[in-house]
């Protein structure tokens, strides 16, 4: 399911004295079945952008096309359920959305809202809890008895349980330990390889370099760059303006460059960097 933004502008509190621009004429295509990362400074409009995809926000002008659906300022709030079933959204700190008395019921909540039978929803809960790396015995516990990291996984399972085609992740690993981060990121990469479209909002450039196929850079509500990470991170202009920072491997490669190494394109992952260094050392 391809997602296209056509000249989307979003103004908060439009037509009021306190109106402020969230998005400014953004045109962007998010390709089907790929892993797209959206980066930008805090307050640049990343979260505003993704909230348009499941019509939590509607454009003030322009349109958003999600599969066959077109969302404009006139789209009304009825009949949005099919769209929200297709587009799952994991919010920042999603553990604050848990409310049922058992983990199982909480994971079943989404699928049941989208019309699954109790049996199907229960089955989904059992599959999902394992998928996010938790034990099935947790299903009968109260979500409020879990640790922060476990709550995060249950919340993610609750979103994935509705089997969305597109999954939007708003900083899903914020505040997790390094091992948890790696597990969760690998889970999303697996999902993408199984045919889902993943959209990730993040500040972590290493994640972008390691996992994303495409990236988009938002700055003050405007889209300023889009393309594969390898190309975007080689864009000198962006780096000079300080709107983008490099992943660790690339900034290390830059330092090596000053000491006589030569890279046609900056390696952005640790594997690429390793291969390059090996080749150059052996070649000389």
């Amino acid at each position: 399911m391809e997602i296209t933004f056509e000249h989307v502008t979003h103004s908060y509190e439009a037509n009021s004295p306190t109106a402020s621009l969230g998005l400014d004429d953004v045109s962007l295509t998010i390709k089907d079945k790929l892993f797209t990362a959206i980066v930008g400074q805090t307050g640049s409009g990343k979260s505003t952008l993704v909230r348009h995809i499941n019509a939590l926000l509607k454009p003030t002008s322009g349109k958003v096309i999600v599969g066959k659906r077109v969302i404009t300022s006139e789209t009304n709030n009825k009949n949005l359920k099919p769209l929200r079933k297709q587009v799952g959204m994991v919010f920042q700190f999603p553990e604050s959305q848990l409310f049922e008395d058992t983990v199982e019921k909480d994971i079943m909540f989404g699928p049941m809202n989208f019309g699954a039978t109790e049996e199907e929803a229960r089955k989904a809960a059992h599959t999902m809890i394992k998928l996010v790396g938790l034990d099935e015995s947790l299903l009968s516990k109260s979500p409020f008895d879990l640790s922060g990291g476990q709550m995060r996984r249950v919340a993610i399972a609750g979103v994935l349980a509705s089997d969305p085609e597109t999954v939007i992740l708003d900083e899903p690993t914020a505040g997790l330990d390094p091992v948890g981060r790696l597990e969760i990121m690998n889970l999303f990469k697996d999902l993408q390889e199984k045919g889902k479209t993943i959209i990730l909002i993040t500040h972590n450039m290493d994640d972008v370099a390691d996992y994303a196929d495409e990236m988009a850079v938002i700055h003050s509500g405007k889209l300023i760059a889009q393309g594969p990470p390898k190309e975007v991170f080689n864009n000198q202009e962006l780096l000079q303006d300080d709107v983008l920072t490099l992943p660790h491997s690339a900034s290390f490669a830059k330092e090596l460059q000053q000491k006589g190494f030569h890279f046609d394109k900056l390696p952005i992952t640790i594997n690429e960097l390793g291969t390059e260094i090996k080749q150059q050392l052996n070649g000389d």
Partner: protein
Amino acid sequence: MDKIILGRYLPGDSIIYRLDPRGKFLLTFYFVGIVFLANNVASYAFLLAFVLFAVYLSKINFGFFIKGLRPIFWLILFTVALQLFFTPSNHPLWHWGILTFSKEGMVIAGYIFIRFVLIIFISTLLTLTTTPIEISDSIESILKPLKKINFPVTQVALMLSIALRFVPLLVDETTKIMDAQRARGVDFGEGVLIKRIKSFVPILIPLFVSSFSIAYDLAIAMESRGYKDGEGRSKYRVLSWDKRDNLMVLFMAVVTIILLFLRSY
């Protein structure tokens, strides 16, 4: 949530902003009291002129004040309509069953309308030009005499300022939780009453849970920074009462005298 103007602070700078919040707070209440003294066209016109002058002094866009009226528009309309059709009269212009329409009714309805506008405008002016923290400081300062009868003034003031500080935070949290549950397929405001009420459970529970955890974290953070109880603390924000504020009180007194004169005129 965005539509409510009353109770919101708008950063700015003008003479009204620089007045002492205690004075502003008390005089706003005082003004709401004297609005009811007005009883004829001249006195209402005078009060309206006074309020518009205060609004002008604040240098705030007039649109904000009009917006402040919007949430209670129907209440105003309802009250005005009641006055318009139920004021008893000896010379009704129009009469049908229990409904009467008369000149007296029209005049009284007009007064009620202006009274609403005056009260909303002046209280919007107070909240737009005074930060919530200034308001809670002034309440503390005004309640101080109650300490003599063992009323816990500092504790109440502390609770008030914490509550005010967390209102926007909890509003954000509510919006966020609502969005998260919408994304999981909850429809708010659809279906029959019972279904609508039930759809709020997935908001209320997480909101209560996060309030508890915020309260817990805040209490720990306060204790570790040496907070024991309200007694024996010094103050960082000190309110100062100066010439401008005396002038404001004097001005209000003049307004009252003119009003009393117009009233019996």
